[in-house]
């Protein structure tokens, strides 16, 4: 169970870790505790699986990567096999089974368009795949995965 302090700490730590030599001391100041308490608790929360990833999050487009959201229509009995084949590509960062006609939705990041085309083509011909959509973004309005605890 998350304590009241854990929730406050997670709320702060989701938004902005300062880019300075002792960032956790600054976080501790905000929460009126000492640096050691913040670090101990963060290590605990990470070990317990509350934190998916800690660190730097880069914008793929600004780094020159090409991205798309793709959706595959997969025969039910083949979903597990197709999902595993899709997951094998390192540029696939999210892959979710969803309700609806198109039942596997994944994101694909590649260094260039040719690589994206090649990977999508190889997925399109997998056994059990009956349709594949690629929905590249034309405008990004928001990416901010933060939860208020």
């Amino acid at each position: 169970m998350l304590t009241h302090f854990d929730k406050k700490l997670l709320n702060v730590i989701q938004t902005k870790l300062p880019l300075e030599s002792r960032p956790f001391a600054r976080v501790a100041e905000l929460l009126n505790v000492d640096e050691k308490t913040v670090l101990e608790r963060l290590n605990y929360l990470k070990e317990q699986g509350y934190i998916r990833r800690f660190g730097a999050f880069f914008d793929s487009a600004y780094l020159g990567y090409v991205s798309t959201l793709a959706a595959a229509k997969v025969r039910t009995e083949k979903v597990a096999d197709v999902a595993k084949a899709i997951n094998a590509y390192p540029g696939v960062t999210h892959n979710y089974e969803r309700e609806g006609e198109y039942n596997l939705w994944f994101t694909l990041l590649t260094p260039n368009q040719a690589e994206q085309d090649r990977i999508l083509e190889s997925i399109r011909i997998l056994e059990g795949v009956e349709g594949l959509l690629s929905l590249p973004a034309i405008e990004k309005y928001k990416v901010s995965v933060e939860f208020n605890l």
Partner: protein
Amino acid sequence: MLDCLDKKIIAVLQGDFPLVAEPYAVLAARIGISEQELLDRLNKYRQSGQLRKMGAVLKHREVGYAANALCAWIVPESRLPEAGRLMSGFRAVTHCYARIPQANWPYNFYTMLHAHTREECRALAAELAQTAGLDRYILLFSTREWKKTSMSYFPEYVQGE
């Protein structure tokens, strides 16, 4: 343009972030530069928009947000910027994009919704629809997570480590 050192920094920062008093000093040592040089570069990336965030991403199921739905909308092209602005204002909307539709798939606008329950997701979508004056949408609830990971950018720059 990113130089070789930029790519190495970005690649190393995809790895484990040390939860210690002086994390940037540890990372700088891994890269082979000074702490100050690393902080200067990170500040530069933040200003240019390349560094979107420094901090934690939580496992949403573990912290109580068990339901997530991709909500796909049909929005008239002229109203895309307005819909983007209005829906981005909702905290429960974590991702909001306009996308190119396809012949057999007319949805051109996507919002990712996170809530505690499916009912909350449905209520939220209805509220978004009312706020933006849009009524053509579908909710695609997730039933299984097959993969969720972070991208490893420029992996060739950390080979051998």
